[in-house]
């Protein structure tokens, strides 16, 4: 086996296919993870007692449950109660549920950091509670939450590899299959590692750019 041939004919095509699946997992999970995270943080902060408690319990439950276990429940457990998900769907749902719980904590922290005067001034202008949240609290809180949220996004990139445990052949899984077949563990896993590193580095740069884009003089970053 020629190393050059192995890389161009086998490794790169396999990892490319895996990468596409990984990107699909991330692109589908991240936006909903963010939206649900915002929803949970708002429910916890501004909801009534019941809603607030539900959100709190949700976060405790997700934090306390290994993601892999959550994925197993979604994929292997749910069919017994009549809900059958594809491996891909179960993975995306699991990632969203997990991502949202952690995101909600970053956002809640950022909401708490918005000064009281901001809400008081908004109320004094006649804004409703929802308008205060949408126009004043969230725009400030989300800016401050960017570093935390980007951290969670980077985790998502890496824990998307757990989808392999549900038979989704994403980047890590594709690497594992090639490595086993050709008995080339070091080469393959180092290659896979480089791809993840590239993804994370790209994200870091993109977030840095985003932070600059939305920066407001006098507010943090």
């Amino acid at each position: 086996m020629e190393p050059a041939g192995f890389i161009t004919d086998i490794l790169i095509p396999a990892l490319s296919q895996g990468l596409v699946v990984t990107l699909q997992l991330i692109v589908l999970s991240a936006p909903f993870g963010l939206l649900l995270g915002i929803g949970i943080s708002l429910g916890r902060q501004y909801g009534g007692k019941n809603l607030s408690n539900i959100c709190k319990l949700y976060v405790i439950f997700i934090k306390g449950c290994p993601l892999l276990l959550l994925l197993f429940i979604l994929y292997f457990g749910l069919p017994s109660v009549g809900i059958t998900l594809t491996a891909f769907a179960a993975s995306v749902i699991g990632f969203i549920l997990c991502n949202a719980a952690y995101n909600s904590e970053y956002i809640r922290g950022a909401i708490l950091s918005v000064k009281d005067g901001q809400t008081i001034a908004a109320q004094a202008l006649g804004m409703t509670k929802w308008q205060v949240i949408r126009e004043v609290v969230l725009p400030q809180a989300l800016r401050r939450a960017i570093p935390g949220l980007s951290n969670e996004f980077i985790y998502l990139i890496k824990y998307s590899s757990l989808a392999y445990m549900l038979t989704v052949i994403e980047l890590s899984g594709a690497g594992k299959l090639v490595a086993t077949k050709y008995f080339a563990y070091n080469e393959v896993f180092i290659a896979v590692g480089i791809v993840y590193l590239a993804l994370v580095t790209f994200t870091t740069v993109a977030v840095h750019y985003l932070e600059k884009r939305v920066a407001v003089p006098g507010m943090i970053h």
Partner: protein
Amino acid sequence: MWSKKELPSRASGQGQDSPMKDDAFVLRVEDIHKKFGTNEVLKGVSFNVRKGETIVFIGPSGTGKSTLLRCINQLTIPEKGRVWLHDDEVTNSGPKISYFRQKIGMVFQNFYLFDHLTAVRNVEIALLKVKKMDPESARRQALYELEQVGMKGWADHYPAELSGGQAQRVSIARALAMDPEVILFDEPTSALDPELTREVLEVMKKLAKSGMTMLVVSHEMGFAASVANQIIFMENGNIVEQGPPDALLYDPAYVRTRKFVGQFADLTQRKD
């Protein structure tokens, strides 16, 4: 400036001489009680405000002046007592409070400009979202209001880029943009150094002259002496004495008032 409304000249004097019917009052405050824990901050405060009047609240710190202002627009909910804007009750008004807050503007000690918005966005945001104005008119009005307070040139600057005096003038423009009937000023110059205080007081004086109804909590005795129609002296959650500046500052009826006002004798002696 502020010629939007035709208002009676203030030169004619609006003392307490002529008995008026209730509907002559823009704002009526009746028996306001407020406690924080066991600390009773307001112990039954009542007063009425006529259209175009400037009332300045004076008194030692911690006597409930700011809390009183906040009870008027229900940012703080009093335990007891009622507030009326004309014939509509502001207290216990449920969701209608949004309407009353548009009609009762407020300016804060620490400005409370929205940190993430430029000056012009600060002024127009409530026009857009609360008054549902179209973006073009909102922008036009926001720029007009900024012009009135001499801040048009700073329209695209963020609050952090403004001096305290500039920020306070923007916050006055923000309150004015809603076209309120009354503006509450909660120690508007207490966070400012003397020079910046003067530029804010200038704006407030012009506003008072234009006929705006204003309730001002302030330690600026010079402002009170020259601009107020009424001064209300508060202590320990009660109104001790109330009257036109001439009487209250120069010839107070109560010893407590005399004592308090006496501290500012050098400021109040000269009248402009």
